[in-house]
């Protein structure tokens, strides 16, 4: 079933990779370049899943998760965090904020696809 | 978005759900269902023709409602689920919620 997925990452190539992988699997993808941009892009529309980088300018991934959990219409939306091994310290903070699914970069496209399907398949 | 209409003048009483019944809507649905149950009807038929989306939380609410009615010697029948809703019911083998009336094939 086609889902609407928001990908938040300041790296365009990472967004491209994620977008290609997900649109290839038949999903709709909305792109945002950082947490603040993501909140603008949400704009009340229905989102099935959020995939977010941790380290971003303006509003980082953890801040974004906290914001999302505070918004009624998005508080139950599943979130996949993309992180690097060096950001493991952020994981505890992120999990406390409500992001429970983490994927360590670099990852294979099929790995991401598998995670997405597990959460919203 | 969920819209819940009920008609307790019929027997079984009718319940129609429109929109989505997911984790986002279950609290609203729970509140409205409790209000509807206040009329005392034990036998209900739920029409899902307009329900576009159902998730496990929504299905759980229907299961709970069904158990409640059964415990009162009543019951809950499901009719007209859309294809997506039926897919979930079948995936989870929720046989007690299988429809006795299937939607007309388009």
């Amino acid at each position: 079933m086609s889902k609407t997925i928001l990908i938040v990452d300041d790296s365009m190539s990472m967004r491209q990779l994620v977008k290609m992988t997900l649109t290839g699997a038949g999903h709709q993808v909305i792109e945002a370049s950082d947490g603040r941009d993501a909140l603008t892009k949400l704009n009340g529309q229905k989102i099935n899943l959020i995939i977010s980088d941790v380290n971003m300018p303006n509003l980082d991934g953890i801040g974004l998760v906290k914001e999302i959990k505070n918004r009624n219409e998005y508080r139950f939306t599943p979130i996949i965090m993309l992180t690097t091994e060096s950001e493991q310290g952020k994981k505890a903070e992120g999990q406390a904020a409500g992001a429970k699914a983490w994927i360590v970069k670099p990852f294979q496209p099929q790995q991401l696809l598998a995670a997405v399907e597990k959460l919203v398949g | 978005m969920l819209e819940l209409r009920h008609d307790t003048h019929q027997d079984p009483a009718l319940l129609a759900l429109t929109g989505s019944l997911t984790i986002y809507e279950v609290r609203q649905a729970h509140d409205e269902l409790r209000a509807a149950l206040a009329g005392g009807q034990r036998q209900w038929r739920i029409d899902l023709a307009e329900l576009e989306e159902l998730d496990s939380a929504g299905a759980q609410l229907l299961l709970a409602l069904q158990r409640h009615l059964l415990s009162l010697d009543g019951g809950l029948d499901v009719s007209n689920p859309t294809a997506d809703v039926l897919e979930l019911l079948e995936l989870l083998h929720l046989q007690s919620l299988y429809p006795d009336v299937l939607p007309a094939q388009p």
Partner: protein
Amino acid sequence: MLNGEQWSQLLQSFLEEGGDLLKQAEECLLVLDGDLADEEAINGLFRAMHTLKGSAGLFSLTPVVAFTHQLESLLMAVRDGERSLTPNLISLMLRCLDELGSMIGRINVETGAVEGNDEVLQTQLLNALAAEMGQGSDSLPTPTAPREGQVQRAPATGEGAWHISLRFSPDLYRNGFDPAAFVRYLSRLGEITHLEVLDENLPDFHQMDPEACYLGMEISLRSASSKAEIEEVFEFILDFCKLRILPPESSLSDYLQLIRELPETDERIGSILVASGLLTEHELNTGLTMQAQGEEPRAPLGSVLVEAGMVAPAVVNAALEKQQVVRERRAQESSLIKVAAHKLDELINLVGELVISAAGAQLQARAHGHSDFIESTQVVNRHVEQIREAALKLRMIEIGDTFNRFHRVVRDVSQELGKKIRLEVRGADTELDKSVTDKIADPLTHLVRNAIDHGIESAEERLAAGKPAEGHLALNAYHESGMIVIEVSDDGRGLNTARIRQKAIDKGLIDPNANLSEHDLHMLIFAAGFSTADSVSNLSGRGVGMDVVRSAIDQLRGTVEIESRPGLGCTFRIRLPLTLAIIEGFLVSLGGEYFVIPLDMVTECMELGDQPLIDGIYGYLNLRGKPLPCIDLSAHFDLPASAVRRRNIVVVSQGRQQAGLIVDQLHGELQTVIKPLGLLFQHLQGISGSTILGSGQVALILDIPSLFRQLQALVDTGASETRSVQNRQELLPRL
């Protein structure tokens, strides 16, 4: 789903991963060949098969999944100490890896199907494995697609069905998780034959929190997956559920224990197990009765991952270890990035262009004489230089990977020939350009096969010659004056010059009266159509001769030399440039023409005094009391005679040879981006490529090894009959 191109791209990355995994697996097997009990190798092998199976599953490559599954189970048994490896098993498994490689090779990237799958061979291999393990083939069933066939009720024994119990925590939904999604995903691993949602923990409708999860699930899954793979499906919700997984064909007591441990009533769980076909009614009743009578000690409740009984300890350990291994691998992966080679090529091409344009800018700055401008172009050039070095380093990889593949080649070939040979690898950490590595692998394979086939004698011959029965083959790599040197040496019989000579005469390659040096005779084995074997064995004689080795090395701008000692062995020494893209050059000019000499070959420069060349164009000069063979390049290339009064000599060296090149002017060092010569000029002797100078002018890159060969042909007294003499004849009219 995925569109064709994207699918192909993803599949392509699987193919690469698959190749890597097979290589890892093979390396592990070869380690095990030396030490059957090497735990790290067994784990590595298991891990490789496990990962391969997992990835293949994502692409629904059923034959690959089925085949790897069998290998994985076998390895699991080995790892858990239930079976032990034998040399025969290792040989068999190597053949299995070959078959896997060929399966992966036959995957059509467009359709995602394994084309022309040889199920017969696969079944044979698996049966042979089973036989070698000393058990009937029923424990290693022939591969069958686990997902094929209609929905069937599992047979009463529960054969092949996993039992999965899930009890969710109330917070599940609120964290964005929907158990339905996980069930959907689980159904990809196999066929869900039974699923029951447990709703008995639902509180009274009026009291319930509709956002809390009260459900549980009992699932039967027919699947070839491993426990770790099933557990991975639930990886994100492990904190939000109690997960119990019972492997197929668990014992009655395992199921009884499960019944005891689950919070629901024994009857409820019992009836689910019966409904799933995992237990018969009779078994259940007997079991429960026995339990009630206290005939079986009650196991402690509440342990999540089940103590003894639910799963064999070995299986639990396996699962834990597997997770550990996955974690470790992720940690390693994060420090590496895989990049397609062509992207690096693109980068290096661009850096090449950058080098040229930066040099152009510097020239212009100098022409304008603007000091600030000159200074900033110098800074730019310095950075460009750093970028160039960094970019080139990106391509440098250790030769070890290439060397290591020869363990397998040596093992296979020596086994085929019934020879016992030990391979020694040295200098595996020596780095060279990836493109060079790729191109040198085949020639090396040929040299290695040749050494085993022709060089190293049979054990009897060796013993008779007073040598150890075991032959010795060595691969060695090291850096030497800006080149990488790769040696293939054996302790065999050495080259038989008499036979080479006879063969060459028979083949009409040389005149029967020719007087050739030892060196020239050796080099004859590289001549096209030459083969020393009396009978073409199917090893070295694969339709390609040593001439292919030679031309491959030539294409890499490398050289090869042979050092043979009769009865003691033979060494092939290959010298290659470290990279093909950019070199440090030394710019010289002849009249108005510019030439580049690879800097790493230049040993010194000096002014050409008044001493004349002994022989016009070619001849000797006195270098510190020793004769230095020299070429007057202007004359050699037929350029107009030099008008410059003070000319210079650039002394170049290659290996132990030295020569002087006489040029007009020296212009100093230069980053040289090599552009291949067009088709028209490829046959040119003595020129290996061209480059563009900052001024836009073209400079030709001198092919020093080829100049050396031409010079050698001229100075060799006995060279009248060799192939290289043709060069002399070409050159003679100019003399």
